[in-house]
């Protein structure tokens, strides 16, 4: 765990100096806040208050979190930094816990902000956090799979973009198209979005689907790692 902690501290120091990532972390909650205050609330119930929160939470979890994870891993590989960590004895699980832990921890701050914007009761807030954190874990794993797959940052962006567009924007399109919603039902961001939109409904099935996504992505990560490893 000492190595995971060391990587966590390194990644935390890095992310607070990475303006591109910080901007992505800020844009989604600011957009959600603005649209909730300026459009949803004045609509007098025509637009649900949680609509924009749900929309931008899905985009944040499905796009920003995987992209941030992929970017961090691909950058460390491309610059040769990762090989020095591996040579020093850092194990893949330590590296993933360190990097993924920071993305998840910083992402949680944003998710709490989203939750507060939705005007949720304490129990609704708890459900919101459980569901979005589950999605966050899946997103970190998704980003790690792509990060290992891609040899450099440019390739990582090219791969993560279309995937995260499906995961991030899919639930938004599903709000206006029932077929899209059915097609995307097996994906964690869709279930997350559905739960937030109908926060008082039973969430057992959605939680199971998110868990299944996590298991599948973890399996893909293990396979990907066995094939490619962490070598730069």
């Amino acid at each position, binding site marked *: 765990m*000492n*190595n995971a*902690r*060391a*990587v966590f*501290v*390194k990644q935390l*120091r*890095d992310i607070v*100096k*990475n303006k591109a990532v910080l901007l992505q972390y800020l844009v989604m909650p600011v957009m959600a806040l603005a649209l909730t205050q300026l459009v949803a609330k004045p609509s007098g119930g025509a637009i649900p208050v949680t609509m924009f929160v749900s929309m931008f939470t899905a985009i944040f979890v499905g796009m920003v979190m995987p992209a941030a994870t992929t970017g961090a891993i691909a950058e460390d590989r491309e*610059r*040769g*930094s*990762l*090989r*020095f*960590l*591996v*040579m*020093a*004895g*850092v194990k893949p699980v330590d590296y993933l816990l360190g990097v993924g832990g920071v993305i998840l921890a910083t992402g949680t701050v944003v998710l709490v902000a989203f939750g507060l914007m939705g005007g949720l009761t304490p129990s609704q807030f708890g459900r919101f956090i459980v569901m979005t954190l589950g999605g966050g874990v899946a997103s970190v794993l998704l980003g790690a799979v792509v990060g290992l797959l891609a040899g450099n940052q440019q390739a990582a962006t090219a791969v993560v973009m279309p995937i995260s567009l499906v995961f991030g924007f899919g639930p938004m399109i599903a709000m206006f198209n029932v077929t899209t919603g059915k097609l995307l039902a097996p994906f964690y961001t869709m279930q997350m979005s559905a739960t937030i939109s109908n926060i008082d409904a039973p969430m057992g099935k959605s939680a199971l689907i998110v868990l299944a996504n996590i298991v599948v992505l973890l399996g893909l990560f293990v396979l990907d790692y066995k094939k490619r490893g962490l*070598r*730069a």
Partner: protein
Amino acid sequence: MIQMQGVVKRFGAQTVLDGVTFTAHDHEIFGLLGPSGAGKTTIINILTHQLDCDAGEHHIGVTSQETGVMLEQDGLFARLTCLDNLELFATIFALPRTRPTEVLASVGLEQAARRPVSALSKGMRQRLALARAVLNHPKVLFLDEPTSGLDPLTARGIHKLIQDLRDDGSTVFLTTHNMDEAVKLCDHVILLNKGTIVEQGTPQDICRRHNAMKTVPDLEAVFIEMTGDELE
């Protein structure tokens, strides 16, 4: 003691190392010389377990925790400060908290401790990479072109550090294009050409064998004779 015995490495149809055999003794500076593409970096990658060889045996007699590595690609974390970079590895190696500052001072970077790596000159980055390589008091130190592209004054400072490390008991394994550097620093050298060792011994002995002892050993003349290549 670092040993390679009949090591073969192929990348596809190309044989990069063809039966490489040598022994580097403890507490010496061992030089690996050869033109670009001769296989020098591949040897370091194999000895530091970043690459597997296709045939033959090798060992360095110490653990990865007792090894220091400086490669051509420095692998430093660009957004972090000099101190942050060293603190990361000091945590991984469980070293005293004062060690990073101590090592920064030994390479003359104490004034730059709080500067981000991205703001350093090439020479400063090289010195920081060397500081990271020696942070854990390595018993075996691998240096791949440590003074490549540096001004004479900075190169001289690095030469002094390398000699001090040898005198303090480390075994230094060095690759270089610079024949003057090899003559000045190395106790023992091997000349590698197209994946095969074409000559080995002390710089003085090699030069004597090839009638290249002038007022000082002219290893460059031997290099050109043995490889047929002009130095870059």
